[in-house]
């Protein structure tokens, strides 16, 4: 075919020109190549983004650790980066982050799992058709709206039960955060359960097991790697959640394991600093990048854990 490049096509019998339009054109080839390169470039943006995130976080954190020794960062029990007597104990923010995530997961994991099992194994078709889009809608509500709800609805409600509860507290923020995470946990676990082959259920039913027994003893264990992935997704959501905590949990750094107290988290600290006007390049400015790096490492840790869990419990059918 290469001998036809750039020339018109000839009819092999009459040797007349059939059509110019069938000629192989160099321009067409070039255009194809250019488009492919552009598409590749678009796809590579995700790689650039990751590289840029790592670069920005690490380069600013390196500056930060030039002023603050790593041991102070890890073991100090005070977090007062913007005071004259500055302390940088990330432990304080970590306690807030982990505590609020724990409260959220205590809500989202049981409820999300129950909803997933119900939708996948029990619910009639019509209920599922309504419930799935509804859960999706619930997941689409902006987190600032959830924050408003936590501060001005859930906290007053809890204060009726516990009159000594402060206006800002981890509990109400965590509870609302848990409800926000339910759709993620439920829909990923449900997908995992529905991927379990029908034959497993049929076998179980044939042995005389009820729906409940089949769901708990056959389907759930078989789908466990997927369910674990859903939990991990829930944890990363909780750890990275910002606005609910910034609004409803107060922003005072507080090293505590009591959910009835206000506390700052890594994310709400970043918001607090960003709301003020910190000069570019100051130590306070670098602090939020060090905090962000910690947050990234935390999510990375949970994701690796999830990966290991998935590998450990993966079932091959």
């Amino acid at each position, binding site marked *: 075919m290469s001998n036809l490049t750039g020339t018109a096509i000839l009819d092999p019998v009459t040797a007349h020109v059939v059509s110019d339009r069938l000629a192989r054109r160099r321009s*067409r080839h070039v*255009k*194809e190549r250019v488009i*492919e390169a552009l*598409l*590749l470039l*678009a*796809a590579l*943006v*995700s*790689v650039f*983004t*990751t590289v840029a*995130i790592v670069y*920005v*976080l690490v380069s*600013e954190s390196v500056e930060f650790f030039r002023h603050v020794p790593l041991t102070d960062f890890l073991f100090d029990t005070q977090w007062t980066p913007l005071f004259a007597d500055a302390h940088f104990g990330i432990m304080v923010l970590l306690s807030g982050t982990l505590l609020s995530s724990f409260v959220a997961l205590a809500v989202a994991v049981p*409820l999300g799992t*129950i*909803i997933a*099992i*119900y*939708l996948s194994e*029990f*619910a009639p078709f019509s209920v599922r058709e309504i419930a799935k889009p*509804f*859960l*999706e*809608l*619930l997941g*689409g*509500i*902006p*987190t*600032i*709206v959830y*924050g*408003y*709800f936590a501060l*001005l*609805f859930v906290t007053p409600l809890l204060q009726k039960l516990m009159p000594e509860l402060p206006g800002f507290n981890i509990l109400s923020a965590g509870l609302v955060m848990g*409800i926000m995470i339910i759709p993620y946990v439920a829909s990923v676990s449900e997908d995992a359960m529905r991927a379990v082959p029908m034959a497993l259920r049929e076998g179980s039913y044939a042995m005389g097991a*009820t*729906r*409940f027994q089949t769901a708990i003893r056959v389907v759930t264990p078989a789908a466990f790697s997927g369910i674990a992935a859903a939990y991990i*997704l829930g944890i*990363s959501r909780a750890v990275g*959640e*910002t*606005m609910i905590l*910034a*609004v409803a949990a107060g922003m005072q750094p507080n090293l505590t394991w009591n959910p009835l107290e206000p506390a700052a988290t890594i*994310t709400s600290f*970043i*918001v607090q600093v*960003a*709301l003020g006007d910190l000069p570019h390049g100051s130590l306070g400015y670098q602090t939020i*990048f060090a905090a962000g790096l910690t947050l990234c490492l935390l*999510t990375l840790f949970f*994701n690796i854990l999830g990966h290991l869990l998935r590998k450990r419990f993966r079932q091959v059918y």
Partner: protein
Amino acid sequence: MALRQEIGEIRAMIARHKRWDMAFALLGLLALMVGVLTFAALFTQMAIEGAARLSWDFFTSFPSRRAAQAGILSAWIGSVMVMIVTAATAVPLGVGAGIYLEEYAPKNWVTDLIEINVTNLAGVPSIIYGLLALGLFVYQFGFGQSVLSAGLTLGLLILPVVIVATREAIRSIPGVIREGAMALGATRWQTTADHIVPYSLPGILTGVIIGMSRAIGETAPVITIGALTFIAFLPPSPVQAEPPFLNFEWLLSGFTVMPIQMFNWTSRPDAAFHANAAAAGLVLVVMTLSMNALAIYIRYRLRKNIKW
């Protein structure tokens, strides 16, 4: 006698197990109800608090020190402008990347690297994107705390959503379509542009809408960039009467967006501002919910209508 007793025992056992079934089904419904009730409470609370503030003035007034006169003019216009930049970033990049991964990508380490990155980026907390933008767009590139910085950030944030939706839409097109087009002499790009993209458009659109609805409610990264919380001016208009008619100054203007305005009002101690926050929240929720509902509807129609 003994046999009858045994049968009775078995019946009792079956009945007991069936009761467990019922109990769990009820528990499942109850768990779902927690979601439904929360949503109902959230919506009613905001409606009761904020409905009185929803008037024409609320949409056409700047924020003010006096709660009763404050409005969301600068906030919603800021949101619209940021969304324009976000769409202009995320749609071409996301759809392009999706097309590349499905139609062009060879099986090699570069493709694997891209796929791993897309999956990972979907799990990065949104505030980290804010830090990225602060370091990169605001200071390194010198875009400042502007509409452009915010739009680019949110564009990157929803990129994975658009890429995944595009890929799923393209994957559902059977290979026969490609083979048919190529058999007629179409090049790869002609096949893609004339067949693959048009047929997967509803699916892509669903992803774009869901991504945009997420971007419009996103607060944390925009605060991190340093969006203002109180602005009583509008960015310069993108259209003007004199040539060249288009004006790009708005891209570098300071701005605020709806969720930030709501955050500002929510975090004030004065309860009068909480009514404003409720009204702004109501607008925001109605906006995101209708976008999501539209996406769900398009997907539903799609599933019903197209049979390859």
